[in-house]
């Protein structure tokens, strides 16, 4: 009854917000030059949703992820996690909160301490939870099984596993803390195609089971199409276009997004995309280009969920 009322009050079909990113910037200073790695990036992630960041190498995807994890501090802007600004947390508060956001790295060979057994690697993640379970080893066995590995692997070291198996261990470790958000930074790009598909399936299965959100970072559009609910297209540190998966795939507006599709021969239907969108500019895009000349950095709405940056 209560639930029904709440549903009625909450006219939004969308689940509540988990992560709000507002205009974050990050520059790196290297020898007499400043690289703007992330520039005025804003986006939201809702509970249970998968938000994908796509873009070419060096466009600032990893840097964005690292700022959300507070492995890097933002220069400007704000990151709110469940309404709390994470840059306002003290070191101690941050450490207590850290288990709520986890990461799966690209390189499964570098993301597990080579001197620890799998049981220890999982145990140290399990004890980071808000409430520790009483039987840590049993919990570790359960986690391993849920990522498709047998419990006989607990006493092995990381070097005894293949890349795909290691990535499964990394996933088990990430979910061990019961996080609300998992940042997947190109989690399958180091793996061969068959293993990629298995890992992606596993990620989806676990999301259904646990209900966490993903920030899915990738430059592989076929992977993104399989995984994402919404997509932000990044170019040169900025999000140049954002929309739901279907909006971005069926109706890409920004010229960079189209370029991205065109440069992907591996994508099934790539030809269709190219034929439909690359040659002839759609009406909106022309409008955008016209507007772009007048107001640069202007957001142009295509639909309530779909916008692009008129900045060219």
């Amino acid at each position, binding site marked *: 009854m209560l639930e029904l009322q709440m549903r009625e009050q909450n006219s939004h079909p969308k689940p509540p917000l988990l992560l709000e990113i507002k205009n974050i910037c990050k520059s790196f200073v290297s020898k007499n030059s400043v690289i703007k790695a992330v520039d005025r990036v804003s986006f939201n992630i809702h509970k249970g949703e998968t938000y994908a960041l796509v873009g070419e190498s060096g466009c600032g995807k990893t840097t964005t992820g690292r700022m959300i*994890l507070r*492995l890097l501090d933002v220069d400007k802007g704000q990151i709110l996690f469940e309404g709390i600004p994470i840059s306002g947390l003290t070191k101690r508060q*941050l*450490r*207590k*909160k*850290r*288990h709520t*956001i*986890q*990461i799966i*790295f690209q*390189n499964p060979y*570098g*993301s*597990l*301490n*080579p*001197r*620890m057994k799998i049981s220890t690697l999982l145990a*140290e*993640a399990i004890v*980071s939870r808000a409430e520790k379970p009483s039987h840590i080893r049993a919990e570790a066995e359960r986690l391993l099984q849920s990522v498709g590995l047998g419990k006989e692997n607990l006493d092995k070291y990381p*070097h005894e596993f293949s890349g795909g198996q290691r990535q499964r261990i*990394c996933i088990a*470790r990430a979910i061990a*803390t019961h996080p609300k958000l998992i940042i997947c930074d190109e989690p399958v790009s180091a793996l061969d195609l068959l293993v990629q598909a298995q890992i992606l399936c596993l990620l989806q299965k676990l999301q259904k089971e646990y209900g966490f959100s993903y920030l899915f970072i990738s430059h592989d559009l076929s992977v993104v199409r399989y995984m994402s609910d919404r997509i932000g297209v990044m170019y040169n540190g900025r999000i140049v276009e954002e929309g739901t998966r279907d909006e971005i795939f069926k109706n890409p507006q920004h010229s960079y997004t189209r370029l991205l599709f065109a440069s992907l021969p591996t994508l099934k239907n790539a030809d269709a995309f190219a034929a439909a969108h690359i040659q002839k500019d759609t009406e909106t895009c022309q409008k955008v280009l016209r507007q772009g000349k007048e107001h640069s950095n202007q957001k142009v709405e295509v639909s309530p969920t779909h916008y692009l940056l008129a900045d060219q």
Partner: protein
Amino acid sequence: MHTLLKIREKTNAYILTGIALLTIVFMFSTIGPLVSAFDPLLTAPAMRLTAPGSVHWMGTDDVGRDVFIRVIYGIKISLIIGVVVALISGITGTIAGVSAAYYPITSKVIMRIVDGIMAFPTIILAIVLAGILGAGMRNIIIALSISYFPMIARVVRNATAEVLATEYVESAEVLGKSNTYIIFRYILPNIASPLIVQITYTFAMAILNESILSFLGVGIQIPTPSLGGMVSDGRNYISTAPWIITFPGLVISWIVLSLDLLGDGLREMLDPRRRRAS
């Protein structure tokens, strides 16, 4: 695959030889006092410069002291100095190196000091320090530890910086682990290989340099037996009584060689690139 196996066998051979040679020296210095009736400090002018024979197995020196028993005690002192210097500079160097890698400001201060110390050749620094502090075992240990800690600090700093940049350390940070936890469970186990190798070399170098300091008269005080001091004493009699200089000289080479072999073998075996390949 075959070459890999061969390297592995060779590596083990280095380590085994090093350990075997060291064990022999150690046994020699432990059993020696039990089988020899002589006192390392007792002079016997009547017996001076006696050649090795059935009574004095390694002969006597210019004041008639038994060379065998003095070598035995010299080995003990050398090994003690080597172990203590390796431990002190190993521990201080590790603390300095890890904190330098962790905290940028500390890093600037520590690395300035380290660079400053390393600007001098180690032996000259040790001589100057021993000169300032005065002779004696404790001061030699201090002088040698100060001379060797920078090298270890630098090795540890670089290795720690490398480990800190890895994703597995970030994964621990993301779990909310404390710096202490990360240092003890992540950094130290992963820098152990270069650290152990460097400590082994420090052990060898400390023994060699103790000999040099004693040889130069700023080391172990007369009449306490030390290998370097004996070599120093013996050089005036090199043509008439070569045994005075030969036996302690041989023992120094023996110890340094065995530690070097051990260090090389450990480096080969613990090299993370080779471990990963396996």
